[in-house]
């Protein structure tokens, strides 16, 4: 059994769109280049591929439509019936059947033409066969235009149906139009159903959720039912009947006591008796709505008798008013309790219960003595419970205050503070005082703590903890201490002074000046290094190598230094004095090698022999002078 999600059905395209999409997909996703002179098997394969690709796409999309739409036999009978009422089972099945037939026909067409293409001996013939095949498939789909349109409408409506769980706890509201069913559901749940003075405002089922006794309950609002036989009922009323017939719920039959809905109480009773058979095996409650306009006690004798008869039969009649909210909670609790009891009963009668019951065991502790140990309820809870029962007037809420004052209302939480001096409640509190953060010192016990600290300090002082150890030291030590302090101070002064002195003046770094060869040799010799091989040494070789450049550099050094401005063009040295041509060559080569990440001149490694951006893809619009 496939799990259906009515909201996740894929969009059904129109016939024209469907054809356009599939054909353009074939054109884009299959190879497009073929020539007369290719081998015949290649030509055949090329066109066969196109035919099969188109067939595959059609097949896939049509199969998806067929699997997405629910089979009326696979879903819960409530939904099957609802869909029959809304969309007509026959039409629905026919439409899906047509799609299935179209799918099979397309498959057959592709099979035939692929078989024929095996005998194609020229490009022209294969091409014509492919054209005939694709054309045939598209014609088949063009004929499904009306089916596809119908299925798209069904899908849109289906995705907006409310998700009603047929197996969970449900309360069902029914009655004449305009009696107050939608107002009731608006009061009890968070559903926002439209409430209007004209009849048939609610045109389909609405569901809302509420909580009672830590359980989730569904409340289903139905469109109003009029009193005529089943065959004459229209689609809107049939939805209500379907809900009544299939959902195992507590039924709340809503009646309008004031007869403002336009139907007398007698008519409402008639309807009640007519649809009575649908209430079999369901807990039933009569909700006498609009009692703020007219109470039952104000009615005429015969009308009061109606309600009396109903309560005699055992059906609770509860007066409510959705406007003043009296009795609404009562109805809710009564209905929920009855439904729970009913459900528990049915479960107890069933077979599955014993599995669970066998595993449950309530252990009661055995009495060890005669002492009474009742449960402990604190006094505050008792008083509160009493207050709740009596429905005593609660203290005035901020909300009520807000309603009263309207625009003048300002939220003032400072009035709830518990201070020693009540006048100080509205005082402004500064944040900083004498350089201290007031927030750091806020503590309800701060005065107490301060006093304790002071007491401690006094004790400590008295005990002599803060007396210094001066007497234990002899005079020598004291003198030494004084001297040491003086020395330290003097030292610090000297350091600061020396730092201020500038002995050497501004200094060049050691590497800035050139070292003469003979000074280098003399110093190294003095240090003890063996200076015999002077010409073969590295510095000598370097000197010889860079003599030519050094000469040039000398000339540059003698030229007056030009001031360096921001724009290079003005301050570049003139051409004949610039860097040599050879150096330029070398430099440009280095630049190119650096950019390509080459290790050296001889590095000819190509990282990407077939770059994708040059070789992949079709030749679409644009120039083709690059490959």
């Amino acid at each position, binding site marked *: 059994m496939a799990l259906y999600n009515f909201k996740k059905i894929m969009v059904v395209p129109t016939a024209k769109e469907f054809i356009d999409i599939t054909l*353009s997909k074939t*054109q884009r996703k299959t190879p497009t280049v073929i020539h007369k002179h290719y081998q015949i098997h290649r030509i055949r394969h090329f066109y066969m591929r196109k035919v099969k690709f188109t067939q595959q796409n059609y097949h896939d999309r049509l199969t998806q439509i067929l699997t997405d739409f629910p089979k009326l036999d696979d879903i819960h009978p409530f939904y099957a019936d609802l869909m029959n009422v809304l969309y007509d089972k026959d039409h629905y099945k026919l439409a899906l059947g047509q799609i299935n037939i179209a799918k099979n026909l397309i498959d057959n067409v592709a099979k*035939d*033409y692929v*078989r*024929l293409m*095996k*005998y194609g*001996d020229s490009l*022209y*013939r294969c091409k*014509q*066969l492919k054209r*005939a*095949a694709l054309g045939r498939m598209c014609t088949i789909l063009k004929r499904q235009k009306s089916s596809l349109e119908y299925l798209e409408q069904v899908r849109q409506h289906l995705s*907006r*149906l*409310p*998700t009603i769980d047929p197996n969970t706890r449900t309360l069902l509201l029914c009655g004449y139009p305009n009696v107050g069913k939608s107002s009731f559901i608006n009061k009890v749940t968070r*559903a*926002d159903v*439209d409430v209007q003075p004209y009849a048939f405002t609610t*045109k*389909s*089922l*609405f*569901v809302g959720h509420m909580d009672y006794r830590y359980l989730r309950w569904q409340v289903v609002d139905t469109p109003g039912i009029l009193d005529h036989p089943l065959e004459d009922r229209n689609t809107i009323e049939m939805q209500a009947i379907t809900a009544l017939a299939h959902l195992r719920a507590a039924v709340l039959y809503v009646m309008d006591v004031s007869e403002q809905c336009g139907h007398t109480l007698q008519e409402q009773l008639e309807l009640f008796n007519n649809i009575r058979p649908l209430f079999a095996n369901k807990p039933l409650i009569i909700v006498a709505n609009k009692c703020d306009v007219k109470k039952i006690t104000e009615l005429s004798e015969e009308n009061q008798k109606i309600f009396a008869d109903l309560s005699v039969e055992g059906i609770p009649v509860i007066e409510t008013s959705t406007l003043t909210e009296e009795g609404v909670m009562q109805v809710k609790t009564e209905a929920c309790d009855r439904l729970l009891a009913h459900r528990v009963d049915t479960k107890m009668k069933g077979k599955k219960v014993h599995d669970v019951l066998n595993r449950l065991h309530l252990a009661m502790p055995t009495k060890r003595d005669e002492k009474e140990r009742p449960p402990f309820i604190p006094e505050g809870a008792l008083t509160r419970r009493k207050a709740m029962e009596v429905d005593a007037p609660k203290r005035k809420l901020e909300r009520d205050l807000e309603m009263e004052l309207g625009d003048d209302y300002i939220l003032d939480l400072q009035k709830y503070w518990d201070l020693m001096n009540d006048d100080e409640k509205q005082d402004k509190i500064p944040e900083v005082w004498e350089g201290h953060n007031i927030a750091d010192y806020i503590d309800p016990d701060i005065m107490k703590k301060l006093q304790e600290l002071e007491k401690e300090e006094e004790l400590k002082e008295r005990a002599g903890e803060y007396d210094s150890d001066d007497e234990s030291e002899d005079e020598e030590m004291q003198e030494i201490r004084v001297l040491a302090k003086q020395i330290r101070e003097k030292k610090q002064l000297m350091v600061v002074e020396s730092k201020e002195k500038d002995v050497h003046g501004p200094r060049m770094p050691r590497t800035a000046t050139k070292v003469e060869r003979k000074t280098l040799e003399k110093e190294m010799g003095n240090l003890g290094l063996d200076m015999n091989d002077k010409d073969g040494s590295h510095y000598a070789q370097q000197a010889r190598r860079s003599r030519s450049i050094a000469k040039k550099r000398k000339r540059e050094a003698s030229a007056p230094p030009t001031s360096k401005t921001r724009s290079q063009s003005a301050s570049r040295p003139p051409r004949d004095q610039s860097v040599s041509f050879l150096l330029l060559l070398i430099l440009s080569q280095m630049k190119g090698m650096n950019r390509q990440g080459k290790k050296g001149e001889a590095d000819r490694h190509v990282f990407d022999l077939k770059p994708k951006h040059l070789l992949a893809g079709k030749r*679409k*619009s644009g120039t083709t002078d690059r490959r």
Partner: protein
Amino acid sequence: MPQNEHIELHRKRHGYRLDHHEKKRKKESREAHERSHKARKLIGLKAKLYHKQRHAEKIQMKKTIKMHEQRKTKQKNDDKTPEGAVPAYLLDREGQSRAKVLSNMIKQKRKEKAGKWEVPLPKVRAQGETEVLKVIRTGKRQKKAWKRMVTKVCFVGDGFTRKPPKYERFIRPMGLRFKKAHVTHPELKATFCLPILGVKKNPSSPLYTTLGVITKGTVIEVNVSELGLVTQGGKVVWGKYAQVTNNPENDGCINAVLLV
């Protein structure tokens, strides 16, 4: 959760966005610019398809405009009464006399003897042997070339059995054997899918007629019992001739016109 007509309900309660109407109006007015941009910038296959569609749209628009202007523009009306229609009291009461029937029969027989019929395609390109028959090489060294395979669509009868493969000279592959043809009635303008009874004449060569090769211009006999035609004498007509009007090997189907 959003149920049933929540969008409409929201619109009813809260109205539209403050700029909704403005945005809508501007979007609609931009459509003309977008359409012209598309028409100018599209290239390739998409452009061809778009221009074709647009051309058809424009023709319709022009017609409606003209109709609105003149209110006298006549358009093709299929329900028009045919020319030469005569009111009932002027019709000849007499039916066809027997002499007329006899003379028609004699004329038919003379035509058949002469072998000329009035056919929709009087002249057809003759198909050479190299086109229709492909040489199949056989033998141990693939040197013998006496077998031929038919490359066009053909019809073989119901009780057809091949000759033993060693001796069969003409191979008619199963993939190219067709049993049904799409036959159009020229006056009714309706097309039916009728089973083929046989190949009467292939204009290219009598050899093809015996082989049953169907090419463009071939006259075939089809089973018209579906149509329920009845002769003057009350006999049911169940076989009629039709001429093939397309190249079946290129289209994968046989389209023919009934010879009335």
